[in-house]
């Protein structure tokens, strides 16, 4: 089982240029909107055509510009779950699921539809019309319809974006179970990094049509490599750096000198640290510890975001260097402490980043 995609397509704002393989584990395509994720899926499904390149699925050439091959969608054996599900509004749930099963005989078709309804917890809803279903049910029908013909490859284009937050996690669990049972390959498009992280062991990060990072999800989060990937994986703090020595840099935007665990290369132009990796300590003894003042803070239900200024007290709420995130319990313990606080940017937590260059 394998999928090889190497395609280019020129667009008004950027040029899509991707080159990747999938074999086995679901691959998540992560990127902001308009980065070319959905277009990549559409090219693989044959809904859009690339300008050049090659797409091979399990030894079947779906597209090859050099030989003039461009198989129509209907022959590709690729299932597609659309962002807004694209359920046929004039057909019942059962008819929607049966739509791709016209080759199967009547009894076989009925059996497969019943099986899908059962697996997707849609039993009893076969005679309803799509508009009579909830958003979550519609999403499951879309998934059932795409899986019923047993495609070699399943493409999911932001399948959770049309759903309420409380439904997402429930459907996410269900989707990951469905994907675990599914024997084909899966490609999952998302702009939500946590969602992509939970569902896909492998990630591919896209920006303006170019691949910025590819590989094991944990490795990408631990070592994003470039500013763009760090941003897309949720890193909030950056500074331009000046190279001082192999393990020492000056963070220009944070006004401090930092020791690093990694070897610093002169190519690395930025340093970053994730908001939840900033430590609050009791003493300034040790490396990368600085006095800090709070410029402002904002709260979410379980966490507190703190805006910190290093080295001097802030002049306004906009005058800060770093965004830190702590749990509410920790915040309750911290907030009574006198200023300056002691903030630690652990050398092992620092992300050394290059300017965003495509792979």
């Amino acid at each position, binding site marked *: 089982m394998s999928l090889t995609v190497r395609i280019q397509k020129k667009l008004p704002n950027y040029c899509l240029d991707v080159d990747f393989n999938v074999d086995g584990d679901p691959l998540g395509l992560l990127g902001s909107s308009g980065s070319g994720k959905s277009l990549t899926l559409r090219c693989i499904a044959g809904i859009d055509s690339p300008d050049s390149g090659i797409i091979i699925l399990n030894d079947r050439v779906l597209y090859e510009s050099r030989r003039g091959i461009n198989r129509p969608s209907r022959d590709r054996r690729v299932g597609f779950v659309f962002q807004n599900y694209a359920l046929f509004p004039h057909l019942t749930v059962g008819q929607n699921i049966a*739509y791709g099963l016209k080759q199967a005989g009547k009894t076989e078709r009925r059996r497969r539809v019943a099986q899908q309804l059962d697996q997707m917890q849609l039993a009893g809803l076969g005679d309803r019309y799509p508009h009579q279903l909830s958003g979550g049910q519609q999403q499951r029908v879309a998934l059932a319809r795409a899986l019923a013909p047993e495609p070699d490859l399943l493409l999911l284009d932001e399948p959770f974006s049309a759903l309420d937050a409380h439904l997402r996690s429930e459907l996410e669990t269900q989707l990951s179970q469905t994907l675990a049972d599914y024997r084909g390959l899966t490609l999952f498009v998302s702009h939500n990094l946590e969602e992509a992280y939970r569902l896909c062991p492998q990630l591919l990060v896209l920006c303006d049509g170019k691949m910025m990072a590819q590989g094991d999800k944990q490795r990408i989060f631990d070592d994003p490599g470039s500013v763009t990937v760090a941003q897309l994986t949720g890193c909030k703090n950056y500074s331009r750096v000046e190279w001082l020595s192999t393990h020492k840099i000056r963070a220009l935007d944070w006004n401090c000198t930092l020791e690093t665990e990694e070897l610093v290369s002169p190519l690395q132009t930025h340093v970053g640290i994730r908001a939840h990796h900033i430590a609050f300590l009791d003493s300034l003894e040790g490396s990368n510890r600085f006095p800090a003042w709070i410029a402002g803070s904002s709260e979410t239900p379980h966490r507190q975001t703190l805006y910190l200024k290093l080295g001097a007290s802030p002049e306004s709420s906009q005058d800060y260097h770093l965004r830190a995130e702590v749990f509410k319990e920790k915040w309750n313990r911290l907030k009574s402490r006198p200023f300056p606080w002691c903030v630690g940017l652990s050398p092992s937590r620092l992300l050394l980043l290059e300017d965003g260059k495509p792979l």
Partner: protein
Amino acid sequence: MIWQPSLLSLQVTLAASGVIWILGLGLGIFLAKTRFPGQLFVSTLLNLPLVLPPSVVGYGLLLGLGRGSPLREWLGIDILFTWQAAAIASTVVALPLMVESTRAAIANVNPELEAAARTLGSTEGEILWRITLPLAYRGILAGFTLSIARSLGEFGATLMVAGSIPGRTQTLPLAIYAAVERREYDLANVMVVMMMAIAFGFLYWVRQFDRHPHS
């Protein structure tokens, strides 16, 4: 006295509706689904009979069907001043309504649904039959209703190519005009009621099909 023009009106409208249904649907699908150079020109041309005065359309048809036309000179078919000519006039005048409605209704179908059907293994023909047409159904039916209404009431162009020959080409609208001209108001009254009954019947019949299970 009133049965003959009534039956003739029915006959002409039925014939025109049949042609409009097939030709209008075909042209509407073609214009919605294909892109070719000069498309705007062709679709504008098709809409012209809607805007032109009936006398101009009638005159055009007279030239197209009469002496010196290929139909008559090469094929030897002379249908001027027959009920077929009246049916052709009705068709030409009412066709644009069907073509435009069909084209718009089909263009309005979400292309994502057609793309979904494609990934599920459908050929373009199957998509048209199972997805596009059922979803565009209401718009198409509305266009068909308008076309029937238009062809049933057709007067000017019909008068020019088919004349107003009692018993042969005099449809109800023409017969009403003739009756009023002769000041036979009683007859005119009866025919007007008849006309309304037929129009109502046609529209009512067509609306029977405008029922959808999912709406």
